């Protein structure tokens, strides 16, 4: 447990979970990811700062499946376990672009406030 507590973790900022999941799935374009890998990838990419709660990950995946941003396909893991692998759809790519653009606008705005010119 001590290794898990080594870095100070932050919850995912509200409203960004969808974007992070979509981005994670799109980055791993060569290989599709299943739920656990997505959670893991977000944690790793954020240098262990952001930890995805399973309690919000799976409802978010369902929501995005319904919205048609991602598609899921069942296949085998290397350990020969059945898992649902997710990939981005065209609608998902557009959504990701929209969310990134919107996030960057907000981030810039916040930066203006924190570091006045």
């Amino acid at each position: 447990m001590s290794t898990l507590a080594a870095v100070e973790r932050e919850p995912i900022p509200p409203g960004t979970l969808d974007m992070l999941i979509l981005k994670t799935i799109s980055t791993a374009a060569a290989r599709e990811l299943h739920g656990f890998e997505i959670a893991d990838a977000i944690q790793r990419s954020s240098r262990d700062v952001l930890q995805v709660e399973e309690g919000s990950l799976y409802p978010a995946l369902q929501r995005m499946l319904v919205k048609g941003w991602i598609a899921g396909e069942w296949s085998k893991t290397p350990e020969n376990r059945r898992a649902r692998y997710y990939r981005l759809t065209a609608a998902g790519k557009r959504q990701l672009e929209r969310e990134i653009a919107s996030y960057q606008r907000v981030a810039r705005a916040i930066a203006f406030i924190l570091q006045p010119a």
Partner: protein
Amino acid sequence: MTPRELWLRLSYPFRRRRVEHELRDEMALHLELRAAELRQRGLTASDAATAARRRFGNRSRIADASRDAWGWHWLDGTLQDLRYVARQLRRTPGFALVACLTIALGVAINATAFIFYDAIVLKPLPVRDAANVIRVTQDRRAFAAELLPFTAYEVLRRDAHTIQSVVTTTQPQTLAAVLPGHATDDIRFVNARFVSPDFALGLGVPAAFGRWFDATDDGAVVLDHGFWTRALGADPHVVGKRMRIGDAELTIVGIAPPKFAGTGLPAVAPDLWLPLATLAATMPNADWRHDSRPHWELLARVAPNATLTQVGAELTAFSRALPDSVGKPIPLAAKHATFFQTDSGEFEVLQQVSGAFMVALALILAIAAVNLANLFAARNAAREREVTVRLALGARRSRVARQLASESVLLAFIGGSLGVLASHSIAVWLRDWLTTTMTSVTGGLAGIFLDIDVDWRVTAYAALLSLAIGLGVGLWPALRAARGDVNTVLRQGSTATGGAGLWGKRNLLLGIQVASSLVLLTAAGMLLGGLRLAQEIDPGFDADHMLVAYVDDDLIGAARAVRREAIARRLAELPEVRSVAWSARVPFAGTHLRRVTTHNGSVTISLDDVSASYFDVMGMAILRGRAFTRQEVESNAPVMLVSESLARERWPNGDAIGRSLPVNDVLTGPDTTKSYSVIGVVRDIRSNFLSRLNGASAYYPRAFDGNFGAFLLRTRGTPASATNAVRVAIAGVSPLLNGRTHIVTLQAGPMAVQRLMAEAPAALALVLALAGLVLASVGVYGLIAQIVTRRTREIGVHMAIGARPMQVVALVARKTLRPVAWGAAAGAVGAVALCFFLRSLISVPDVPDLTFGAGAFNPLVLGGVLATLLIAVVAACVIPAHRAAHVDPTVALRSE
């Protein structure tokens, strides 16, 4: 929402199993992989599994949240709620029954009223695209504005651009007819409308059988569906058969559709539809197509792209082209045509009055709802703890509130459905009663076509009401329960009581209900007493053998008097008729009162202008002196007969016979410049109101002239059996009088109206009183039940220290019966006041006595009413009081 997403969401219920299965697999894999990762970091297998599960969190909660993504969670919740509610209600069937019936009662009353509102106020014309149909009328006319000369039809049809499909119809005309398959002397009188050949086509009315006539038909007739069913047994083979109408032989070419009652004004279905071309053959004297008198109603459709304003403007422009019979231009106007419509604004008044009535009925429903809310509050108080526990365990407040509300919504739904079903039967019964009464009272002159149907509007109205009750009744206590502070309630248990203000308001409401139902019950009791008397009342003359014949003459002056005399002679020759008289006033149909001040104070005198044989026809006993002679009547001699009471009043000492009234005396007859002398004294009778004697009356001679009046006939057998012979005899004097004669027996007509004056208020008061009593009982029940549940612990303590059950009942009842007691006291005062009001009416001579002489204050009625109220209240108390008396102290105390 994209189409794909919509499809996914909609198809979810069918794929639900698979979706959930997949989600479970996915989460299981996640847990395993996490555990494996932890094992790699050195945890034992069991520690790793536990840690993984702890980190993952509540799996069913996540599954719930994931399910929410599909947007179907409300259905799950609702089904759950319904199961829960059904379980609750099965446990307390009495409560469910009372709640359902209360709602059913309230909804039935309201829905019945709405059915009539719908059938009258909201009823469109029964034609295609009715919103587009207008009626052309004479502008700024108070009377018969809907009737226009035939030229208006011809001109508008030819030249108007803003309207199209111009059609015309006469008002219903009474014609002598021989139905197919009947003997030629088997004449029956039917009502027919003459319409333009394109009437059905222009309005878009199909035929149920056969076809409508067209421009080439000059000997065709279409039967009304109702008439075809009534008179011809709905025999489809009559199409193609011939029937005689007037002197013409016509062919039945079709049957109108069942719900097509015509275009209103009047709102009755005629028996027959005849093309214009048959007018000359069936009504030889009516040259209505060429004379300039207004006999025609005009309807049309607004042309596409035209507005009602444009139509109005164009009609104004046409006015000059349409001179009336004396050459003045007829100003025209257009208004939307509805089935129930009048030409002088009564319909608009009816719309407003009935709207106000609907609001009043909704208030009754609101009272029912408040009482129900009490009942529900009583139950929910008992469940406050349960609710609190569920809140403490993390149930969402909205979810709990919804669950509590769904109970009342379910009950409201069941009750509302019962109410709608009941309202349909009530409405049909009322419609039948209303149409039969109207037809018999007016001798078939006025009927009414009511299309009683539980259509979507009625259903929607009732559903809306039920939903409002369900939500209102359930949500108020439910919100209160859900707002409850978890800690307080858990600590205090169910001893917590509601705010004092709320209790005060509820008590006030209950008191008002008790008081008003008491007043209504008293009114009903008194009116019912009058109703009993009304059945056996003796008017003082031979009312059982009287026939009234109204003849609406088109002649004036001396010619009219001559014709009336001819009719009287002809009628007197009939074997069925014993004697014939003419009277300016028909008994029980209006009054002719003169209020005068004499040396003895103010008196009201009833005046009658009558022909010589009046007293013979009425079978009125002449106590002293004699009746008028023929000569006296014809010469308008200055003589009079007076009633006993008038003779007593004016000449208290000695005989009235031979006395004269000075010129300009208050009693003097039609000509006040003459001195009238008394030639006879007759009994006091009832002919103004069945409910009271006329009092001082004077009778003056009157020949067969004057603008108002009717033939009164005394028949040998039953008056109804003479009706047809009388009609044939009058038509024999002039065929045109066919459609202008209206015959009714005195009993079935004017006297029935008089009886209705007793029946209608009595029935209305009774229904409202009973509804009020039921509602008040539910109110009492709810209040006591609430007290019992809220004070179970206190009752338990009382029982534990040795209170007897009766003492407990008294304890509970005391609090509730206080508003009942002051409500009853206030109601008794109101009831007595009502009695005095009714008594005061008796001193006003020109209104009927609604109690029919039963008197104003009747202690028996008041006593009976109080006893009824007492029984109702006691009955309402029994169940909750019984429950209170059987509180088990150990259980009551432990449960806290």
